[in-house]
């Protein structure tokens, strides 16, 4: 399945985004700020996660007029979010010709059992994951890019770190096992056997693995890149900070120079206050976005 041309094109665009920053934007003006600051792509949505968390209610696909405005404003790829399992929102976004669809836990799920059959689409999908099994189930359904979920809208990096470390550790563990042990692992991870075999042989996912959910500073971006993220998504972290333009530029720089503390210091100088953060351990289970997805 990975080697067919359609899938290579989907994962190929994800390859092009590596080392970059994908920024959440809610209108054309923010999209232009993001592009000028060096975003590799923008994610169109109705409200950033911090506002969804605050205001509550049902979070849906963004208004088409807004997405279209954003697509017309910038020359970089434009992604948009669809609700988990809402394959008709996804069909509409595909007809609009967005470049990537995020089947996202940040929006209110439309189906509490099933995700979208992503292989049935020509447009590529990215999905969130907290562990290897979840990542491989999404890839099995056709996702061409995985992002660790973190806890969106929290401004707290702890969940993003937990999820990236979990996936990296679970992948490493598979590489030292014998072939006869892999079926038991597939059962334990509740993941497709062929994908478990792939990870055991290569030590990595068959698609790019990015990080999301809680990145608010250049240091946060560098941290998840050090832990194995190949690019970062920044949601509320930019436009909920005091200084969106400067912060966007600084996080772009940090994603490139994550291995160079002197450059990271430069990126961190002269920034104002980051977005306010939440202590994720104090949130009720029902307030967590990361537990959406099955």
């Amino acid at each position, binding site marked *: 399945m990975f080697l067919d041309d359609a899938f*290579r094109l989907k994962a190929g*665009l994800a390859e*092009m985004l*590596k*080392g970059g920053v994908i920024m959440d934007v809610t209108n054309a003006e923010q999209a232009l700020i993001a592009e*000028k600051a060096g975003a590799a792509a923008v994610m169109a949505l109705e409200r950033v996660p911090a506002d969804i968390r605050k205001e509550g209610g049902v979070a849906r696909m963004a208004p088409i007029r807004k997405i279209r405005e954003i697509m017309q404003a910038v*020359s970089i790829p434009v992604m948009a979010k669809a609700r988990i399992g809402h394959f008709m929102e996804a069909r509409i976004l595909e007809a609009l*010709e967005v470049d990537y669809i995020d089947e996202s836990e940040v929006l209110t799920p439309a189906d509490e059992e099933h995700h979208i059959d992503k292989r049935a689409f020509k447009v590529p999908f990215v999905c969130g994951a907290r562990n290897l099994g979840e990542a491989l189930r999404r890839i099995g359904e056709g996702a061409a890019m995985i992002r660790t979920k973190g806890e969106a809208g929290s401004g707290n990096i702890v969940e993003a770190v937990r999820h990236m470390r979990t996936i990296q550790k679970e992948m490493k563990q598979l590489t030292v096992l014998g072939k006869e042990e892999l079926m038991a692992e597939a059962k334990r991870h509740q993941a497709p056997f062929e994908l478990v075999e792939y990870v055991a042989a290569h030590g990595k996912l068959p698609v790019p693995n990015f990080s999301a959910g809680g990145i608010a500073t250049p240091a946060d971006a560098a941290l998840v890149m050090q832990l194995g993220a190949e690019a970062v998504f920044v949601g509320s972290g930019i436009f909920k900070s005091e200084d969106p333009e400067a912060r966007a530029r600084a996080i772009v720089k940090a994603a*490139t120079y994550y291995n160079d503390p002197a450059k990271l210091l430069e990126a961190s100088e002269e920034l104002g206050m980051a977005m306010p953060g939440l202590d994720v351990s104090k949130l009720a289970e029902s307030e967590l976005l990361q537990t959406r997805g099955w």
Partner: protein
Amino acid sequence: MKTVGILALQGDFEAHRKAVEAAGGRAVEVRTAAGLDQIGGLILPGGESTTMLRLIHAEGLFEPLQRFGRGRPVFGTCAGAILLASRVTHPEQESFGLMDIEVERNGYGRQLDSRVVRLPLEDGLRERAGGDDGLEAVFIRAPIIRETGAGVRVLARYLGDPVLVEQGLHLAATFHPELTRDHRLHRLFLAKI
């Protein structure tokens, strides 16, 4: 062994590293002007050209990269081909002007217009690249080369437009040879160093 630098500001530099190694070269990632001192040739990878330009300027790399390209070989793929051009449209943006080509960004459209095709080799490329097999060309939100100057040789075309061009030391492809298992173009580039 020949050392190839890969501009690693953003994009698919890792895929290029693997392709260079498979083609028999040594690959190093370049993120600073000092990184240019130790390499024989440079690859400008695929990715987002606006992101790369933004970092190139912020880090004072524009002039050092341009100077490098005036004396030594550069191979640009997709976004890299856009950076090598003398003129860029849709929208207009700055470029190194190292090759006499005019490039239109996202010339085929959006991601849904991305495609994998098999290209026949033009005469001349067949002997140099080795093997009669056509090139597998992966186009992802690819640019189109709209004009080529007198000194530019077209090595492959798709739908009539040049997609692989050479001028002196430089090579530009609007597709992504680094995303295939066919490393002939990377070998061709190594031969120029």
